[in-house]
């Protein structure tokens, strides 16, 4: 037991290697956490960050290893990131369009699209994107020009993620778009009478949310793994939901929340390596955190009701 806890600590915050692992895990959680937080704030239940992340990674890989692999770094790295955002946005917008046009609940469609995205990645790395020797189910390694610059083992994606959190905050509270997004999320009927179309907002919000998740996917392949393979994301998009809820859907609070879960993931990996405690147990913690965060909202409400009655 103590051995496991020691591993958990040294693998996350107790050593330099632990810190770099933690920060590496934090970057995708921060961006996907933002994606989920923005969607939930807009009244859209995007459970599909996982699939959007994979779709982003897929598009990024296609650009980096097939479509434009010879381009100079100045162009290729941004193109890879954009391709990732595009792939994720496409998946998000698809769910949004199904809801707006056919009334399909985005809860179910985004979940189903997660499985579709996983299969598409499998299809790609057994087919058009498979590495040159055709022996392994993975893509060619990215050309150096497509890789994200990194500092030690922490890639520039983390900086971008921090910037995105600040931008997300500004978007939500300082721009007319964020204003409308919050209005639709709080009261869709009122928003509709105020001239904001909830259907169109759902498509836009899901596309934006998907773009963020897709960007996270691009950063993973271009910053961490350097190639695409199955199991690239072991549930990052689901953990993102816990990240967003712990942050109470506030973009700036997503930063510490993502850091917490990043440390947990990094520590759990070390725990499995060194003490044989299965890393999947972190999902238990994620589930519990969601319930505890939700439980806090029950207490707040009960307190509010008492105050009102008194």
């Amino acid at each position, binding site marked *: 037991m103590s051995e496991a806890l020691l591993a958990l600590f040294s693998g996350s915050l107790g050593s330099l290697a632990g810190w770099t692992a933690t920060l590496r895990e934090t970057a995708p959680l921060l961006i996907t956490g933002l994606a989920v937080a923005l969607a939930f704030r807009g009244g859209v*239940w995007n*459970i599909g960050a996982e699939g959007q992340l994979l779709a982003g990674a897929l598009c990024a890989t296609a650009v980096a290893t097939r479509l434009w692999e010879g381009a100079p770094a100045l162009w290729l790295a941004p193109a890879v990131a954009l391709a990732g955002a595009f792939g994720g946005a496409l998946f998000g917008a698809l769910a949004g369009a*199904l809801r707006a046009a*056919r*009334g*399909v*609940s985005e*809860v*179910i*469609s985004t*979940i*189903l*699209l997660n*499985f*579709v995205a*996983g*299969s*598409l990645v*499998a*299809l790609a790395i*057994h*087919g058009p994107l498979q590495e040159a020797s055709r022996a392994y189910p993975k893509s060619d390694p990215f050309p150096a020009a497509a890789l994200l610059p990194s500092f030690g083992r922490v890639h520039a994606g983390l900086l971008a993620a921090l910037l995105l959190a600040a931008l997300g905050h500004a978007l939500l509270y300082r721009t007319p778009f964020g204003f409308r997004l919050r209005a639709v999320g709080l009261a869709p009927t009122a928003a509709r009478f105020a001239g904001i179309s909830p259907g169109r907002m759902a498509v836009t919000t899901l596309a934006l949310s998907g773009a963020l998740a897709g960007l996270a996917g691009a950063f993973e392949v271009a910053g961490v793994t350097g190639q695409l393979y199955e199991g690239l994301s072991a*549930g990052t998009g*689901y953990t993102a*939901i*816990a990240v967003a*809820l712990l942050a109470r859907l506030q973009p700036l609070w997503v930063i510490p929340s993502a850091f917490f879960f990043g440390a947990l993931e990094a520590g759990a990996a070390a725990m499995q390596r060194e003490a044989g*405690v*299965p890393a*999947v*147990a*972190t*999902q*238990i*913690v*994620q*589930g*519990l955190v*969601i*319930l505890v965060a*939700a*439980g806090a*909202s*029950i207490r707040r*409400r009960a307190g509010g009701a008492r105050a009102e*009655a008194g």
Partner: protein
Amino acid sequence: MEALLEATLRLAAPLLLAALGELVIERAGLIDIGIEGTMLTGAFAGFVVAVATGSPLAGVAAAAVAGTAVGALFAAFAVFGRVDQIVVGTAVNLLALGATGAGSRALYGGAPPSAPTLGALAEGPLAELPWLGALVFAQTPFVLAAWALALAIGVVLARTRPGLRLRAVGESARAADAEGVSVPRVRAAAVLIGSSLAGVAGAALTLAQSDSFTEGMTAGRGFIALAIVIFGRWSALGVLLASLFFGCATALQFRLQARGVGIPYPVFLMFPYLVTLAVLALATGRARAPADLGRAYAREAS
């Protein structure tokens, strides 16, 4: 043809059981996306107990109990705590995935043993009867139980007072409350019953369709069950037909796959989810969900 029908019934059974569970819950006005995790928990608990006791029936009972326990967790937060149902469902799914994954590694390391399974209802001459043999006697008890439950749930919802009360709570919690029906109690009961069915649905995967447990083995079947309830328009008969449709689609998929028609393997993996999306896109338009579906209920003091 006979073989295809046989496979359809077999593959539809777990989906039907899970979808019936979700149907009961949704008719009471709750969306439980945690049904996936509930099913997974049932699959694991059923497997563990069947391995330990050597009795597949004990495994099924354990799956039902485990499903009910997960349901109790869901009900505590979603019904009594009035936390958003999607949020609680997501938490349940994560918890179930983590707990069963960790539990399976802790108990069996990397190599889980084989579980004793529930075999066909009858062997020998009965199972060799034309049609009847393949469609009834060669099937596992899960198939028969699923059909019987579909019938029973249909009758209870339409023709009994408890069923009527359950529907009233889902259609208008306020009206039910004003008539003296305890909304939380009815909803919690629906969640417990529905979740136990989902648990048994999981056991059908580990104790009949295979004899083993692998991490995350429900692979979205619970989510497909959610779609089946919509496609089946919130009726027991509709859910029965919709699950047969999905069973048939899966059976066809396996056939094509076995024949090796040159379609890459991942395409088959994607197939059920794409079918589900297509069905939802085509079916949602005219369907009528319970009016209070997904809405937490609190009595207003005015």
